């Protein structure tokens, strides 16, 4: 669900440092937020593990049919699946896929969302109202249903997956960007730029974009987990990535089917996935609180 979560860290009375730049201040605030730092650490760890997996993990597709599904042991830290494949490797490779889809689809939704939001915010007035009303209506419709519908019609392939997910998750970013653009538009430096005769394009590029960039990064970090979740749900239902590619969603599906006999097949991928979502969400919240403490909840 595209509603970002918040941390509830109460800030103590702090002194305002004279002359601290926005970024330095933000980094300081971020560093104080333990959960955000934890989130960042885990995400980095995950990214490294996922990228480096081919170097150290056992091959994920090495089946060992006589072995079958075995509980965790020193040889297989997460155990093996029904076909004897090492679960840890499958989880690592699976997270590569999940992350890849997450990032690509986020890219798609960011592109759509930023453009939509920026245009809506810049135009203001009636067009803005209409555009936002559309967003409101779309918000209330169940995304997955439409993605599945698109897949039924156009067949299942990974590009379509990216596009469909991206096309469905852009709403929050659009709203945020539009809000930011609206408030920026009213600020004095924009009026000054207009008064100086800068052309619209220059205004947009040199003034609006840098200010919108910060908030876009934050919501990008928050969109990735939403997107990953959507992909996992689709894969769980059987509509996402197709074997032999397996994302964490596929692994969880397999795990759920074998839950009575081989519970580790579910618990490891499931918890790993949750941990990833958790870290990304805390990272995103931490970034948001650091860059814009006024938006922090209480």
């Amino acid at each position, binding site marked *: 669900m595209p509603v970002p979560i918040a941390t509830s860290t109460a*800030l*103590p*009375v*702090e002194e*305002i440092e004279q002359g601290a730049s926005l970024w330095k201040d933000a980094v300081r605030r971020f560093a104080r937020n333990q959960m955000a730092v934890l989130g960042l650490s885990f995400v980095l760890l995950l990214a490294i593990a996922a990228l480096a997996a081919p170097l150290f993990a056992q091959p994920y597709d090495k089946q060992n049919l006589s072995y079958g599904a075995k509980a965790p042991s020193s040889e297989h830290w997460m155990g093996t699946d029904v076909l004897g494949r090492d679960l840890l490797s499958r989880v690592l490779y699976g997270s590569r896929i999940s992350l890849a889809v997450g990032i690509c689809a986020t890219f798609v939704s960011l592109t759509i969302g930023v453009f939509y939001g920026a245009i809506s915010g810049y135009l203001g007035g009636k067009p803005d109202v209409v555009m936002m009303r559309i967003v409101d209506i779309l918000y209330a419709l169940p995304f997955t249903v439409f993605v599945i519908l698109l897949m039924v019609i156009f067949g299942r392939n990974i590009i379509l997956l990216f596009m469909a997910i991206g096309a469905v998750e852009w709403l929050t970013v659009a709203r945020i960007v539009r809000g930011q653009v609206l408030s920026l538009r009213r600020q004095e430096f924009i009026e000054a730029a207009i008064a100086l005769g800068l052309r619209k394009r220059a205004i947009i590029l040199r003034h609006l974009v840098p200010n919108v960039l910060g908030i876009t990064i934050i919501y990008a970090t928050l969109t990735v987990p939403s997107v990953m979740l959507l992909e996992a749900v689709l894969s769980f239902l059987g509509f996402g990535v197709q074997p032999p590619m397996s994302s964490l969603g596929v692994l969880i599906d397999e795990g759920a089917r074998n839950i009575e006999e081989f519970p580790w097949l579910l618990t490891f991928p499931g918890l790993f996935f949750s941990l990833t979502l958790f870290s990304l969400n805390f990272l995103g919240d931490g970034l948001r609180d650091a860059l814009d403490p006024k938006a922090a909840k209480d």
Partner: protein
Amino acid sequence: MPLLEVQNLRTRFHTRHGVVRAVQDVSFSLEKGETLGIVGESGSGKSVTCYSLLRLIPQPPGKIEGGQAMFDGVDLLSCSREQLRAIRGKRVSMIFQDPMTSLNPYLRVEEQIIEPLLIHDRLDRTEAVKRAIQALEDVGVPGAAQRIRSYPHEFSGGMRQRVMIAMALITRPELLIADEPTTALDVTVQAQILDLIRKLQHDLGTAVIWISHDLGVVAGFCRRTLVMYAGRIVETASTEAIFKRPKHPYNRALQKSIPALQAKGAELYTIPGLPPDLSKPLPGCAFAPRCEFAEDICRSGDIGLKEVEASHDSACLRVQKGELTI
């Protein structure tokens, strides 16, 4: 025995930008049935003082750090919550500046007016509603019996304030605290509300503390007046004396700023400078940076209220010393 005796009230707000000393060492007393005005700019501490009396300050970040407020033998600042609740709305009532935000938009006016009766007098609903309709009529709302079923946003500003007044006085409290009740209203409506409160005060014998930034409003109604600046009382006297014989530069500057009293066509007088930042400690007299009579002693001396004339106190060091006549 005074109805209310406040001694050394101190209230501070602990914010992330520092500790704001909103009210410092405020002491005053109020007799039964007396009308007292508290005058000052925004940020002078006049409202916070009165909210502190009923402990209506949000407690973080605010904190009542010291003092006493004796009301009929009970210290409002340290008594139990039950005692406090029994007094709020029953013996001490309050009306607020913005009746639109101070009335609950989700409840009918009827619900809100009968509430003090239900809480304190334990009346049954029908009886309470009857009293409420009567109260609305007493404050001059036409068609009270029908209009009582309306919601606050269906009333005009002046009418809403009348509703607040009815609600506050329905239990016949001994003290009414009015926090700038006419500031948000049109000038003509202001006069009406002022008249209404004056009449009710006379009929019920309720003591009234009227908070305002407008000396003119206070002049027509309050027998005594306190002038506050930067969280402290700087002058207190009968209203007549405050106007005719000001004994503090700030008071005089305020009066000079009243537009109606200035010569037509001349530049409007404004007090130079800005009100002080209350999160920083202020040595000496807080008004000194803006005072045309300030000397060195004003910036470092020990400032306190002293009687400079019969029933007339001032916190101006130079006036206390007799050096300065305003």
